[in-house]
């Protein structure tokens, strides 16, 4: 293969090349200290003073949010703070990598990344089966190259059939075999979501897995960029032989049966040069199928497999770097390349040598995601405090202090439920279906907190409706009341002083102990004279727009006449509010609620820092 002609100059691309040749190693050798050494040298060169190391509590909260997508339970914080073991941080990382939270967090992450936004072929896309496939991969810690290969080349049956939206909501037990005994390959649903739009499939695959925005060349050639329209067409031509075939053609055409089970197959026609046809898909079919470096799949028995082999090959300079950059950005808040999926010569790379070194090591580890995460989380760079020390680069491009990251919707919902300990109450009062309820709540938050994780967030990108949801919304406001079994009820019931109760609330929300000043201040706040406010009406048990857990509301601008309704006001806890012990309904009880409310609305809670 000829990689060399790709590189049109620039240090970044030279580094890419170096990465591609270094796969002779048989095992990973990169120590976190080596990363720290490289970054420290860069700080010295730029005259940047790094922040002090983060304390134990802040570090623990950070790895919980980054690895499992949730804040730590209060008792885990206490145990960790009491632990005298010198390498307790590394041990904590290892524990989290083996926890169920790791699997659910990365399932969520890749579900968001791969199934984002509008899904055009909604009826044949079984998102539940896709999630199940993702869960299986993160549970097994499937090597990244296999993960991507299996996804790109997926064939077979998409779904067990039936109303599979229910599977996604956890209303029907997930299964990998249908009633006819057919084996399911949930990965097919990702390819199916682009059916009829091969250019979106190729553009997305290139962007996410190679960090190359070749689709920018779809409309016209850019003078300054490498990719031309013909490159894009040729790359897309690798995907045009993929076809869905109904498993049960009768049931598929029958409006009553609605059997949308599909078999995804490759119709492997060799490429025959034809005259250029007008129109969208014809253009791609008439293009010679090649990879980005010109590797030709015209003769290939299966173009899609050929392309996937090329994409995930050790020699491919983009493949490992794209994921290493993505993961570095996830943990450190800024990638070597930003936006993380836009590698091109005209887009400068920060510390290309470090990115290349990490990529080498990732390849050498056998594309082991857990290895990569462990390496990043145990560097001193990742361990730094978010509080600046001395002269710091204002843009903080060199990670000299930990970059604040706003929680995403699923982190926020999980952390709110964790901090308020409302899960048992949700199960008890909302009549089971916890997953469906959580999904509904998460949808409400997702709609309002739609942050684009592909871009470095320089400033806080928030909206008024988001703030209003947290300030006045039913979920937060009901969760801070002393519903039996939840956090505030337990705190108020526990023996001890106000100071001890304040500490308990701090551990639950901010995952740390309060300082002496904070204790004094809040003790005073709780004991200030105040009047109790009577309930000004029962909380809304039902949302204005009834939300049925059927998944429909999730489709923004749905097909046909069906517009998405913004799911606001859904509060599964509302019914539990009248179980509150009257003994707590005092002015001081309300002062506690107000403190709890303020903690949950604080930046310290809402950012990963």
């Amino acid at each position: 293969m000829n990689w060399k002609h790709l590189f049109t100059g620039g240090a970044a691309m030279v580094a890419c090349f170096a990465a591609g040749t270094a796969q002779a190693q048989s095992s990973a050798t990169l120590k976190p200290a080596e990363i720290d050494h490289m970054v420290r040298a860069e700080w010295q060169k730029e005259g940047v003073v790094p922040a002090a190391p983060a304390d134990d509590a802040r570090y623990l909260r950070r790895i919980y949010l980054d690895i499992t997508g949730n804040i730590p339970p209060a008792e885990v914080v206490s145990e960790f703070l009491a632990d005298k073991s010198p390498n307790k941080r590394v041990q904590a990382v290892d524990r989290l990598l083996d926890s169920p939270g790791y699997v659910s967090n990365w399932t969520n992450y890749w579900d968001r990344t791969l199934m984002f936004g509008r899904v055009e072929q909604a009826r044949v896309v079984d998102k539940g089966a896709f999630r199940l496939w993702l869960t299986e991969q993160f549970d097994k810690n499937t090597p990244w190259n296999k993960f991507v290969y299996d996804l790109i080349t997926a064939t077979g049956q998409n779904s067990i059939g039936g109303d599979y939206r229910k599977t996604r909501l956890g209303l029907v037990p997930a299964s990998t075999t249908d009633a006819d005994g057919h084996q399911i390959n949930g990965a097919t649903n990702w390819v199916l979501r682009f059916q009829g739009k091969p250019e979106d499939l190729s553009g997305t695959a290139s962007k996410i897995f190679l960090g190359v925005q070749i689709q920018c060349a779809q409309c016209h050639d850019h003078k300054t960029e490498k990719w031309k329209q013909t490159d894009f067409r040729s790359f897309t031509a690798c995907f045009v032989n993929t076809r869905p075939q109904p498993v049960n053609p009768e049931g598929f055409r029958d409006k009553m049966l609605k059997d949308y089970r599909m078999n995804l197959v490759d119709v492997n026609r060799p490429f025959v040069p034809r005259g250029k046809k007008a129109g969208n898909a014809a253009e791609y079919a008439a293009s010679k199928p090649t990879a980005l470096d010109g590797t030709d799949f015209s003769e290939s028995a299966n173009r899609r497999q050929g392309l996937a082999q090329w994409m995930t090959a050790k020699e491919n300079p983009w493949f490992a770097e794209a994921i290493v950059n993505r993961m570095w950005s996830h943990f450190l808040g800024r990638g070597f390349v930003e936006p993380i999926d836009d590698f091109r010569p005209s887009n400068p790379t920060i510390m290309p040598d470090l990115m290349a070194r990490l990529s080498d090591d990732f390849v050498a580890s056998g594309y082991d995601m857990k290895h990569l995460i462990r390496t990043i989380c145990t560097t001193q760079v990742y361990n730094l405090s978010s509080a600046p020390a001395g002269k710091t680069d204002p843009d903080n491009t060199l990670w000299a202090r930990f970059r604040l990251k706003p929680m995403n919707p699923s982190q926020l919902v999980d952390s709110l439920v964790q901090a308020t300990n409302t899960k048992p109450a949700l199960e008890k009062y909302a009549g089971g279906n916890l997953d469906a309820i959580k999904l509904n709540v998460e949808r409400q938050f997702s709609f309002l907190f739609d942050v684009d994780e592909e871009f470095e967030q320089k400033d806080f990108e928030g909206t008024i409706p988001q703030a209003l949801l947290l300030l006045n919304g039913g979920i937060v406001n009901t969760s801070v009341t002393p519903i039996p079994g939840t956090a505030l009820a337990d705190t108020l019931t526990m023996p001890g002083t106000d100071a001890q109760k304040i500490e308990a609330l701090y551990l639950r929300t901010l995952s740390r102990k309060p300082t002496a000043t904070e204790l004094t201040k809040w003790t005073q706040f709780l004991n200030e004279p105040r009047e109790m406010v009577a309930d000004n009406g029962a909380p809304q048990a039902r949302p204005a727009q009834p939300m049925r857990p059927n998944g429909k509301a999730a489709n923004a601008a749905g097909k046909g006449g069906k517009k998405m309704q913004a799911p606001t006001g859904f509060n599964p806890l509302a019914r539990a509010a009248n179980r509150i012990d009257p003994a707590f309904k005092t002015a001081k009880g309300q002062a506690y609620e107000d403190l709890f409310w303020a903690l949950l609305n604080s930046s310290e809670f809402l950012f990963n820092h």
Partner: protein
Amino acid sequence: MKPTNISEEEMDYLEDLEEERVREENGGSCPGPVDSFATPTLDRRGFVKVGLGGMLSLMMAQWLDPRAAMAAQQAGAPKKAKACILLWMNGGPSHLDTWDPKPGAATGGPLKSIKTRIPGVEISEHMPQIADVANHLAIVRGMSSKEGNHQRAQYLMHTGYSPNPTIQHPSLGGWVSEELGDPKFDLPSFVSISGPSLSAGFLGVQYGPLVIQQPGQPPANVGYAPGVNMTRFDMRQNALGMLENEFSAETGDIKVKGRDAVYGKAVRMMRSPHLKAFEITDEPEAVKTAYGDTNFGRGCLMARRLVESGVKFVEVVLDGWDTHTDNFNRVTKQMNTYDPAMATLIKDLEERKLLDSTLVIWMGEFGRTPKINGNDGRDHFPGAWSAVMAGGGVRGGQAYGQTDAEGTKVVDKQVIVPDLFATISTVLGMNPSKSFMTPVGRPIAITEKGAAVKDLLA
């Protein structure tokens, strides 16, 4: 004969199957919806694009195109809209049964047409009130686009661009909010009623829509939670303020300040006198009746109140246009809903001296097939359809462009989507070619290929 109780969703699906079948017959390479084959849209400026970079071709296009020069002159003209109300017809309304009737033609259907206050221009019999204010309307009968799938076409007609996975284009409301919005105003500049509209894309979430699900409702969560009154809310705010000060001092981070600023705006909105604009119950019964006792009518009334209070872009959605079956009864019902609402909106704006400064747009994502299908329905049809503009900066009292005798293709004065967007932005005093840097470092303008249609400008 297909059963008549088939749902729209299923119908769409059958269309997809038909596309797939045609695709197979064409050797695995057939694009898009079947409907769009009839009228491929021409790219009139294709010659300019060849071999030139994006920005350069844009400049050249304006230089070469007299209409663009005209539009540039218009930028200094005094009569400009300052706000926009988009009446969004979700699902794709049939042009033949609304603004471009062809009674007697094989494709015309059973509905009759009536005269309007534009000499020689007729519209459907089910728009009598609108016919009476037609002197304000510019009926664009030569719309033509290429997207025949709902989602893609809804994206196209909200943003001016076809979807592309590499970029989130801002919707029109996002552009207006960014360009015309007053940062000091205490409500969001972009309000979407009965639908989420589309986001402001790369411009940032702060320019996105405030969504009102149900017209007549206040925005979600602007009121205090149960058990909280103003005194208690202030106590909570004080407590929160203490936490924020400490964290801000500890980190010195711009994001903490940014977040606090958003919270500050939210609290300001909770206390804003402009919130009254959402309370249509204050309106006299006669006014409410005139707009119609429908969600869409209430939405239009709310839109007028919002524009009056200083909101810059309001989108009101009328759903239910995806009439693959029983087209004529359903379209009639739709017209009965929007005829009083839209006509009253125009009259109301005029009486309040707001029509000169407000652009009203009526459109959906595409038109529908002239051919009537076996279920008395019409299917998706982007090749030829109608959109309507009225109000400030628009030359009213005309039907612009023409389709053939059967309504199947545009035969005169075709308006492509970029041209429509250039016209809208010119009317609103926004430079259609002003480009913004996207996060991926490529400039994007409101429209890159379009030029304002001078005959539509006042």
